[in-house]
């Protein structure tokens, strides 16, 4: 069985091609994908994850606001008690910002040119880790992230 995954576009970023490509690829890999559409704020994204009881949240940002929006979303998830949600992201996220995002509980970041196969491999890996009881959620012990 696949996972239930919310794919979200936080902030004012209007680039939706990547998010749509990912949403389709995950569906074709057997996951149930809820796509939020453009321009959702952190509270709306967290509400979607909550009502949909999603196991994963994939954030797509290309506008440069990832350094503010992603930590906000991670904090909100934790404060709502959703520590076990697996959060990952893609888009234009420079290397020098990545460690800070991993320290917020993000478990993977995928830049332009990523093959969708790699993202599917990540999901497979992360869900078997979760099954083994390893910490992979946004509010669980830090340490492991993809690559």
């Amino acid at each position, binding site marked *: 069985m696949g996972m239930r995954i919310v794919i979200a576009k936080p902030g004012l970023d209007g680039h939706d091609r990547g998010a749509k490509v990912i949403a389709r690829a995950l*569906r074709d890999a057997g996951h149930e994908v*809820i796509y939020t559409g453009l321009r959702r704020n952190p509270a709306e994204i967290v509400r979607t994850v*909550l009502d949909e009881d999603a196991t994963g949240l994939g954030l797509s940002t290309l506008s440069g606001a990832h350094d503010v929006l992603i930590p906000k979303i991670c904090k909100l998830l934790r404060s709502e008690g959703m520590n076990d949600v697996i959060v990952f992201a893609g888009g234009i996220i420079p290397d020098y910002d990545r460690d800070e995002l991993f320290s917020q509980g993000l478990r993977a970041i995928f830049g332009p040119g990523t093959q969708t196969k790699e993202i599917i491999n990540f999901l497979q890996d992360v869900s078997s880790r979760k099954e083994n009881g390893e910490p992979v959620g946004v509010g669980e012990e830090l340490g492991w992230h993809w690559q």
Partner: protein
Amino acid sequence: MGGIGSNVEEIISNAIGGNRRSLSKLLTIIESGKSIPTNNLGAWTLGVTGPPGVGKSTLIGKMIIEWISRGEKVAVLAVDPSSPKSGGALLGDRMRMAISDANDLVFVRSLATRNHPGGLTSFLAPMISLLSQCGWTRIIIETVGSGQSEIRIVAFADRVLLVEGPDRGDIIQAEKAGIIELADIIAINKSDLPSAQLAADSLQNSLSLSTETAIEVCLVSAHLGDGVTELVESIEQIETDSNRDTIRFRERLLSAWDSRLISHPQFNEVIRALSAGTITLDEALEQISQATN
């Protein structure tokens, strides 16, 4: 933030107490096939059906706003198809109901058909009961809007809204049996487009020829919000039709039967044998019904 609860009884009582996470978890539990104790205390239900892309989700998004302003709490179960090949699904209804993400008086859950025959899973019934028990006063079910699911919706919803679009004027044949006989009200959406009025007129005309009881046809624009207040008002006036009970229970029975069939332990095995040509269809049916008894 309270916890969701540690056992099903506790999760249920937390959900009824208003905890959204508990409610959300319970819906997942129901969807996974486990039965939980719920009782249907007269839930208010509306099924929204109609062909793909006519604007069902967008219209529901607008109707939600109207209901909230009338003091209702609105829950939506939005069904989209699973891919028969991968088993995955792209659940896109919620995206059209932006209000759902930001208001405590709205709860939207996207559901995949998971290849359930008829396009609607029999788990809808306990989900509806649960939502009603948790204080949701208007429960809306959006179907995938094609084929059998159009009729099967009567198994779960006491009222049915059929949404049509302007380009479908000559496709609609009111004489043709089907959902049009079961709809309580019809909305022609996209009235902002030129041909909508024409579609409404021609539909009204052909309906007046065939049915004993007049079905109301409303022109609406989910984009502009035109006609939505009137539509909601008309929906509120619908008297649920007890004459429909035979059809309702027929569809309920079929739905429950389908569920039992696809969750049968030998279901996949029998399919494999069928496609390998080692058994006939009759033998397959025999095998499954023997294992049931």
